[in-house]
């Protein structure tokens, strides 16, 4: 379904060049949940944004990306925009502060000239567990978890096949995170969606994904099955250290930490 080959993303020019993503390749099958995990600066969000076509004006993107047999060129087609949607990390930042929930949800429908916009908006709200009373509220009037639901509803309006999730629950309280993760799983089942989930939280990735790639400094360190994660048998030492660190504070383990330059 999704195929990325030798993706490179370079920001800036001259003396201030920053190679954010180096030769990254990955492959996601239809209906799969693919995880991209890494610490800050690993390039995981950049990969997602490159796939979404958000970087073409601000960076040099090279490599081959194919989505549903369509090779992605510099300009994404309307069909791509209908098929591939994205949910961002900051629930407040990803909703326009001056637009009501209704405007936010109706926009993708209008842009793609879909019919029955009113119905679609109401349905999308229902699907994410928000009732009609939210429809004409502004983002600052609803909670973080509710805003993230609106973000998810917005991603569903065009009936996509693929949703890119950039740290969708990192800014949420733990109890709200559980609700949102459950929602995402249910939607995936009901709509046969394909997910690429970016997170720094190994537990979230292990919960949601079947396959994952670990990134560091713009490169893929290893790609593995989630079972390897659960069995604590990753191949590379960096991944092992990340896994150990995710388990909590363990003094002996910490004293053995290496610096991975």
């Amino acid at each position: 379904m999704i195929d990325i080959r030798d993706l490179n993303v370079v920001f800036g020019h001259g003396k201030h060049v920053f190679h954010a993503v180096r030769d990254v390749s990955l492959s996601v099958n239809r209906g799969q949940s693919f995880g991209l995990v890494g610490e800050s600066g690993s390039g995981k969000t950049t990969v997602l944004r490159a796939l979404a076509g958000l970087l073409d004006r601000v960076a040099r993107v090279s490599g081959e990306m194919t989505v549903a047999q369509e090779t992605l060129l510099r300009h994404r087609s309307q069909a791509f925009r209908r098929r591939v949607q994205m949910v961002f990390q900051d629930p407040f930042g990803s909703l326009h502060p001056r637009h009501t929930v209704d405007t936010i949800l109706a926009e993708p429908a209008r842009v793609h000239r879909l019919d029955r916009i009113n119905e679609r908006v109401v349905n999308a709200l229902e699907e994410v567990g928000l009732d009609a009373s939210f429809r004409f509220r502004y983002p600052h009037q609803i909670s973080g978890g509710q805003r993230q639901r609106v973000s998810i509803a917005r991603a569903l309006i065009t009936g996509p096949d693929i949703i890119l999730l950039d740290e969708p629950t990192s800014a949420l309280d733990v109890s709200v995170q559980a609700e949102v993760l459950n929602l995402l799983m249910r939607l995936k089942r009901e709509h046969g969606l394909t997910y690429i989930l970016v997170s720094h939280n190994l537990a979230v990735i292990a919960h949601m994904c079947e396959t994952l790639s670990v990134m560091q400094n713009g490169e893929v360190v290893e790609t593995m099955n989630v079972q390897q994660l659960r069995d604590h048998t990753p191949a590379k030492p960096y991944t092992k250290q990340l896994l150990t660190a995710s388990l909590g504070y363990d003094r002996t383990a910490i004293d053995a930490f290496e610096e991975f330059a």
Partner: protein
Amino acid sequence: MAAEQTLRGWLLAEIPESKLQARCQRIFISWLAFIRNPVAVIGLLIIVGLVGIAALAPWITSSDGLEPDLANRLLPPSSEHWFGTDGLGRDIFDRIIWGSRITLYIVALVSVIVVPIGLLIGTVAGYIGGLVDTILMRLTDIFLAFPRLILAMALVAALGPGLENAVLAIALTTWSPFARIARAEALTIRNSEFILAAQVQGVSTIGILTRHVTPLCLSSVIVRLTLDMAGIILTAAGLGFLGLGAQPPTPEWGAMISLGRQFLIDQWWVPTVPGIAILVVSLGFNLLGDGLRDVFDPKSGG
């Protein structure tokens, strides 16, 4: 009253049921925040007063203020002529009132030219960036560097003297700071996640500029406009003073000061009253602008 209760109820309802209601609620809440500031309310009242007397001019004046009456030159304020008469015997009160229309005309015309141009150039430059930004900003700089008076004289030479041409000259030399303000806001907004979300949705660049970027730049621009309004009125007055703007016998306040200057010592009311009128209106716009800025501050929400 029952009707008032339901309107207030509708505006304060917990759950808005339509886009209109939601928008009215937001405006109402901003209004409540605005009137908490007494100084801002004074500003608003002054401007409302200006609009009021301009509208009611035919009914509150006794003449059109244009006919000379040389027998009654330079009369001091009295019950018959509240502000006295000027060098040609015209009632100053009436001229002030009719002049308010001209002031409003200047305000409106400049706003209508300056705000759209500034927003358009600023948002496009800020959002698109790169070469487009550079070109537009150099264009902005060129207009910023233009001395108003020279431009006004050039326009007058080309198009003939008149208020419209003076206003055009003012507008052409005033839009630059607004473009800069809009550009600064657009630069901040352009990397926000809601803009990225719109891009992912496939919203066109024009759509993003009009529906996403511009609404957020609007409040800064409007605040700046009200604060600049004093300067704009004074500049129009100055141009009128130089004979480049409103032509006699038009009762433009600046022109009135110009003509009345020679009488300052002995018949102080002739230039002073229009001067006070300009002062009051400029102050009104300033206070209004300050009040609006306090309301639009993002920290106060909405």
